[in-house]
C-alpha cells in the first residue's frame, strides 16, 4: 500500500483490520473500509478499467459514482461500482468489458481505429447491402454491453418498506445537516438521507489542508445525533422523486419508500471535468476525487501532480494534496484573472501557479497506463483556444482537475422545479420550486461553507412554515466571491481525444460533427451522440455538453436548456425495485378437501379452483370425461363458491335489476329465478347470471367468478346515481356454493333436507330457503350443467359440512366431484354460451342468440339505446352450436380455429370438445347469419390447415343429440 498516507483525521478506513483480495489475478492488501478503487490505488495499481467504446485504459475519475470508469465483476455480480463499493476480504475481482484482462485488453485496438468510428457511425454503415447486415449486427452485439450477466445469480427479493415524515432532507452535507437540525428543533419529524456511509458531504474532505473543519463537522454531527426526531439513513440514495413527495430511498437492505410532507434537496453538486486531450488517462482525476481519496481512505492520488483548475476550488485541492504529502508540480489556472488570495498561499508553499494557462494535453506513459507529464500553454479564455506556440511539458504522474459544478438536481427536476441559469455562479439553479419542495446548498447555487449552513437553516425554516408552524423568514443566500464554475473549460485539440462523456467516449468534435449533421438541439444531440445516456446519466457530462452546444450555436447557455431528468439517480437493482411482491389468492372453505382428493387447481382471478381431480389410474382427459359422465349418468358435485354473490335488499330491488340487467324482474315471483345479462353502454355482453327472488324486497344475484368484483362495483355506482330505496350487500366471500347435478342429484339431496324436491313443487328456475344437513341454505334449481341440478348457497364456514354430507350420501349413487374443466364441457352440452369464452370484447346479445333475454320494451336498461341502433343493422355473425361428423377421426379442431371459405374468414370456433356422453365432437362457432340454420354446413380449418366439416345443430345439444 505504497500510496497510503499517514493517518488522516476522520478517515473511513480501519487500520486495525487488514484484508486481502484479488484483482485481475493479483493479490492486493487493503484496510477494512476501503473501496475497491481506493485499495487498488493505494497499492499503486494504475489501470482499473476499460472504457465502453474505445477500450481506453481508465482509473478513478470522480470516486463518487458519477462515472463508470471502474466497473468490476466478482463472477457472481457484475457492473459493480468499484469506486464506492467497499472491498471485502477474499473478493476475487476482474474488470468488466475486457478481452484478455484490463492491462492488455485486446479490444484496445478500437481506440486506434476510432477515426473510422465518427459520431453516429452505426447509422452510417453496415446496412448495405442488406444481406451483410446480420453479420455486422453480430459483430456489433458482441462488442456491446459492459459486464456479463451471471445466469445463476440468485433471485433476491429485497424488503420494500414505507416511511412517513414531515421533512425529508436529501443530502447530509453542511446544508443538509443544518436543515435537518433546524427542522427537528422546530418539532418536526425529519428523515435525513445520504448516499455515503458517513455524513458530512464535502465538509469531510474539502479542507484546503486545514484540519479545523473536522471539529466543525463533528459539532454538526453531534447536534444532529442529539435530536431524537431525526432519523438518519446513510449509505442510501434518494433514487427519484414521484408525485406527492414520494421518494424511494435505496440501500443494500432494500427500498424505503418515504412519503414526506416536504422535501429539502441538499444534494450538492457534481464536479465537472475540464476537457483537454487525454483527460481520461489513469491518474487524471477530479479534484474532489483526489480529496476523497486523501481524507476518506488516506490514499495519495499520485506522487507528483499538476492541478488544473478553472475556479478557486483547485487551489483548495492543491493544499489538500500538499497536506497529504503529494508534491504539486504546478497549479494551472485557466482563468486570465487567476485567484489572487489563493495564489499567494500556494506560492508560499512553493507551488508554481500558471495563471491564464491550460493543460493542452496529458502525456501518457509508454505503456499508456498512466501520466508522465502535462503539456501546458497559455490559454485564450475568451476564444477558448490553447496558444500552443509557447507550450511546454511539466513532468508529473497525475493531474487533479477542477473546473466547476453541475447541480445534483435530479430530484428537483423530477418534481417539476423550474431551473434558471445563474451567471453569478455559472450554474443552473432552482427558480420556481413546486409546493413543499426546497433546495439548499450547492444545488441551490450556494457554495461558501458559512452560506451553505445558513442556506440549510433558511430552507428548513421555509419548510417549517410550509407545514403551518412559525419560523423565521430568512433571506436567500447570494453567492459572493469567485465564480465556482467556469463557463467554458474546454481545450480544443486537433487530435481530439478530449473527453466530455467518459461513459460513452464522447469528445468535443463529436458534438461539433453532430451539429453539422443537424443535431443541434440538446435532445437531438443527446440522442445522436448518446451523451448522458450511459449508466452515469450525464452526471459528469451533461453540463459540458450544454456548454459546447451553446458555443456551437452561438447562444447563451440558458437558451439551450437542459435535457429531462428521469429516475433513477443511480441505477437501481431490479431485485430492489421488484422486491417481495404480493401474490394474493383466495381459497374456498373446501380447499383442503379438494387438495386431499387429488384436485389440480387452476387460477380464476385470485381464486384457486379445482380444474379436475386426478385419480391414480386416470389421465387428465379421462378424468375430465369421467367427471362429466358422472353428471350425466349418476351425479356430480362442484364447488362454485367463487361465484359473485350479491344481495339486493329493499323496496326498489326489482326496479334496480330492471335498469341494471336486460330482463324483467318486477313481476318475478318470490321463489322464482331469472336469467340476468349485463351489457355495457355500447351494448356489449359483459356477464350473465341468475337473480333469485327470496322476498318481495330481496333478490339474491349470482354472477360469474371473473367479473364478480366489477359487477358489484358497477351496481354500487349505478345505485349512487339512481339513489333507489335499496341496499347492496356483497356476500361473495361470506357465502359458499355447491352445485350438485345429475340424475341422482335429487335423491342424494333429499336425504339431507326436508324440502319437497319434487319437480312439480320445486321446478327449474326456482329458489327455496331450507336446511340442508342442518344448515340454512338457499337452494337454487338451475339447469346449467344438467337439467337436474341444485345450487346450494350457504355460509362459507358451514359449506364443508354440507359438502361432506352430500359426498357421503352420494356414495351409493356414484356421486363424483367435478372441476371447472368438466363444467365447461357440461355447460356446452347444455348449450350455454359463456361470456368471455364464447363472447369477446365486442359481442352483442343478438350475436349469441340471446334476443329472448333482452326486454327492449322496458323504459331503460344499460346498453338498451345501443341495442336499438344495433337492431337496425344487419347481423354480422351468429354463434351456433355445431357437431363434427359421427365417428370423426381426423385432426381435432381447437378453440379459436377459424371458420373459413377459401380466402374468406367467416368466423371462428369459440368452444369445442369431445363429449363422451354423445360420443361426438360438439362446439360453438361464429358463422355468418346465412349459415345459422340447423343443418347448415361449414368448414373449420384445423391447426395443420386441414379443413374439417361441421354441421349446425339445434340448441341445446342435450336435446338435439342422442346419448351414445
Amino acid at each position, binding site marked *: 500500500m505504497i500510496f497510503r498516507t499517514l493517518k488522516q483525521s476522520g478517515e473511513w478506513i480501519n487500520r486495525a483490520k487488514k484484508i486481502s483480495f484479488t484483482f485481475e489475478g493479483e493479490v492486493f492488501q487493503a484496510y477494512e473500509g476501503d473501496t475497491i478503487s481506493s485499495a487498488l490505488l493505494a497499492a499503486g495499481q494504475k489501470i482499473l478499467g476499460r472504457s465502453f467504446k474505445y477500450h481506453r485504459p481508465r482509473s478513478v475519475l470522480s470516486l463518487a459514482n458519477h462515472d463508470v470508469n471502474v466497473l468490476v465483476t466478482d463472477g457472481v455480480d457484475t457492473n459493480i461500482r468499484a469506486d464506492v463499493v467497499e472491498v471485502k476480504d477474499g473478493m476475487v475481482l476482474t474488470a468488466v468489458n475486457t478481452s484478455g484482462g484490463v492491462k492488455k485488453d485486446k479490444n484496445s485496438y478500437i481506440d486506434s481505429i476510432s477515426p473510422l468510428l465518427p459520431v453516429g457511425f452505426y447509422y452510417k454503415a453496415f446496412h448495405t447491402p442488406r444481406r451483410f447486415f446480420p453479420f455486422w449486427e453480430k459483430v456489433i452485439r458482441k462488442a456491446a454491453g459492459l459486464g456479463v450477466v451471471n445466469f445463476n445469480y440468485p433471485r433476491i427479493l429485497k424488503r420494500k418498506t414505507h416511511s412517513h415524515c414531515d421533512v425529508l432532507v436529501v443530502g447530509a452535507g453542511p446544508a443538509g445537516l443544518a436543515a435537518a437540525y433546524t427542522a427537528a428543533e422546530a418539532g418536526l419529524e425529519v428523515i435525513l438521507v445520504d448516499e455515503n456511509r458517513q455524513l458530512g458531504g464535502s465538509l469531510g474532505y474539502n479542507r484546503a489542508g486545514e484540519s479545523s473543519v473536522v471539529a466543525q463537522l463533528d459539532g454538526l454531527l453531534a447536534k444532529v445525533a442529539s435530536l431524537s426526531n431525526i432519523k438518519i439513513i446513510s449509505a442510501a440514495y434518494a433514487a427519484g422523486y*414521484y*408525485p406527492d413527495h414520494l421518494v424511494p430511498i435505496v440501500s443494500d437492505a432494500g427500498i424505503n419508500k418515504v412519503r414526506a410532507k416536504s422535501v429539502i434537496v441538499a444534494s450538492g453538486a457534481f464536479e465537472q471535468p475540464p476537457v483537454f486531450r487525454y483527460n481520461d488517462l489513469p491518474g487524471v482525476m477530479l479534484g474532489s476525487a483526489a480529496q476523497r481519496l486523501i481524507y476518506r481512505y488516506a490514499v495519495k492520488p499520485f506522487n507528483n501532480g499538476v492541478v488544473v483548475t478553472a475556479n478557486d476550488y483547485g487551489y483548495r485541492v492543491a493544499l489538500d494534496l500538499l497536506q497529504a504529502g503529494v508534491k504539486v508540480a504546478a497549479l494551472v489556472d485557466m482563468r486570465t484573472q487567476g485567484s489572487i488570495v489563493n495564489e499567494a498561499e500556494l506560492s508560499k508553499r512553493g507551488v508554481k501557479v500558471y495563471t491564464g494557462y491550460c493543460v493542452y494535453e496529458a502525456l501518457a506513459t509508454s505503456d499508456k497506463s498512466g501520466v508522465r507529464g502535462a503539456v501546458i500553454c497559455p490559454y485564450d479564455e475568451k476564444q477558448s483556444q490553447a496558444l500552443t506556440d509557447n507550450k511546454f511539458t511539466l513532468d508529473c504522474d497525475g493531474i487533479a482537475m477542477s473546473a466547476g459544478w453541475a447541480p445534483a438536481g435530479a430530484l428537483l427536476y423530477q418534481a417539476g422545479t423550474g431551473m434558471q441559469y445563474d451567471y453569478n455562479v455559472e450554474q443552473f439553479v432552482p427558480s420556481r420550486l413546486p409546493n413543499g419542495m426546497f433546495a439548499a446548498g450547492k444545488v441551490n447555487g450556494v457554495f461558501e461553507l458559512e452560506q451553505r449552513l445558513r442556506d440549510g437553516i433558511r430552507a428548513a425554516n421555509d419548510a417549517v412554515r410550509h407545514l403551518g408552524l412559525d419560523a423565521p423568514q430568512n433571506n436567500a443566500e447570494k453567492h459572493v466571491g469567485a465564480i465556482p464554475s467556469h463557463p467554458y473549460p474546454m481545450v480544443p485539440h486537433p487530435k481530439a481525444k478530449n473527453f466530455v462523456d467518459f461513459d460513452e467516449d464522447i469528445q468535443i468534435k463529436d458534438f461539433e460533427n453532430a451539429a453539422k449533421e443537424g443535431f443541434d438541439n440538446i435532445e437531438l444531440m443527446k440522442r445522436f451522440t448518446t451523451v448522458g445516456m450511459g449508466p452515469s446519466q450525464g452526471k459528469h457530462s451533461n453540463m459540458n455538453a450544454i456548454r459546447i452546444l451553446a458555443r456551437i450555436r452561438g447562444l447563451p447557455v440558458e437558451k439551450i436548456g437542459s435535457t429531462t431528468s428521469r429516475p433513477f439517480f443511480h441505477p437501481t437493482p431490479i431485485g430492489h425495485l421488484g422486491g417481495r411482491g404480493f401474490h394474493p389468492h383466495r381459497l374456498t372453505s373446501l380447499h383442503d378437501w379438494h387438495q386431499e382428493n387429488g384436485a389440480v387447481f387452476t387460477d380464476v382471478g385470485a381464486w384457486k379452483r379445482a380444474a379436475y381431480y386426478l385419480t391414480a389410474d386416470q389421465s387428465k382427459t379421462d378424468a375430465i370425461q369421467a367427471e362429466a359422465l358422472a353428471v350425466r349418468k349418476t351425479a356430480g358435485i362442484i364447488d362454485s363458491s367463487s361465484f359473485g354473490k350479491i344481495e339486493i335488499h329493499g323496496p326498489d330491488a326489482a326496479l334496480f335489476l330492471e335498469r341494471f340487467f336486460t330482463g324483467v324482474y318486477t313481476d318475478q315471483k318470490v321463489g322464482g329465478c331469472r336469467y340476468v345479462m349485463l351489457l355495457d353502454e355500447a351494448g356489449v355482453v359483459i356477464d350473465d347470471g341468475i337473480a333469485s327472488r327470496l322476498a318481495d324486497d330481496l333478490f339474491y344475484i349470482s354472477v360469474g367468478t371473473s367479473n364478480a368484483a366489477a359487477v358489484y362495483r358497477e351496481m354500487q355506482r349505478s345505485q*349512487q*346515481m*339512481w*339513489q333507489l330505496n335499496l341496499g347492496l350487500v356483497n356476500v361473495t366471500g361470506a357465502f359458499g356454493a355447491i352445485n350438485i347435478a345429475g340424475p341422482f342429484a335429487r335423491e342424494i339431496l333429499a336425504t339431507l333436507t326436508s324440502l319437497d324436491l319434487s319437480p312439480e313443487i320445486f321446478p327449474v328456475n326456482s329458489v327455496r330457503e331450507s336446511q340442508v344437513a342442518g344448515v340454512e341454505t338457499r337452494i337454487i334449481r338451475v339447469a346449467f350443467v344438467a337439467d337436474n341440478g341444485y345450487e346450494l348457497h350457504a355460509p362459507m364456514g358451514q359449506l364443508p359440512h354440507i359438502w361432506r354430507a352430500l359426498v357421503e350420501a352420494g356414495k351409493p349413487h356414484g356421486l363424483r366431484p367435478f372441476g371447472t374443466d368438466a363444467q365447461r364441457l357440461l355447460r356446452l352440452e347444455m348449450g350455454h354460451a359463456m361470456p368471455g369464452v364464447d363472447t369477446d370484447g365486442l359481442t352483442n346479445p343478438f350475436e349469441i342468440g340471446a334476443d329472448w333475454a333482452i326486454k327492449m320494451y322496458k323504459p331503460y336498461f344499460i346498453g338498451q*339505446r*345501443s341495442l*336499438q341502433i344495433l337492431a337496425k343493422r344487419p347481423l354480422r355473425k351468429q354463434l351456433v352450436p355445431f357437431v363434427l361428423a359421427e365417428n370423426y377421426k381426423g385432426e381435432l379442431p381447437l378453440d379459436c380455429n377459424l371458420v373459413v371459405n377459401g380466402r374468406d374468414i367467416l368466423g371462428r370456433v369459440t368452444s369445442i370438445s369431445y363429449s363422451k356422453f354423445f360420443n361426438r365432437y360438439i362446439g360453438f362457432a361464429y358463422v355468418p347469419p346465412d349459415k345459422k340454420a340447423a343443418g347448415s354446413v361449414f368448414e373449420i380449418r384445423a391447426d395443420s390447415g386441414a379443413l374439417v366439416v361441421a354441421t349446425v345443430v339445434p340448441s341445446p345439444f342435450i336435446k338435439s343429440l342422442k346419448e351414445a
Partner: protein
Amino acid sequence: MKLLTCPMNGTRPLSEFVFGGEYRQAPDQLTCTDAEWAAYVHNRSGAPGDKKEWWYHSPSGTWFIAERNTLTDKVTRTYLFGQGNTTQEQGK
C-alpha cells in the same frame, strides 16, 4: 405513488382506487338521435383540462367524484356523487 383523497376514508395512495372514467351526462335516450347516442357512447372529451371523474375506493367500496386536471394531474376536490353542490353532476 400519487395520493387521492376519498371523501369518506381520507387520503390514500392511488393503488387503493379504481378509475371509473369521466363523469358524463348521457343524452336523453328517448329523444336523442342514433348519431348522438353513438357519439356519447364512443367519443370522449380527450383534450386536457379540468374533468369530473369517477373514482372508487376499493377497500371501503366508496364511489366518489374527483375534480382533476388531466394535464397537471392535480386533484382540486373530491366529494360523494350528488354532494358537489353543482347542477351538472346530478344523476338521471
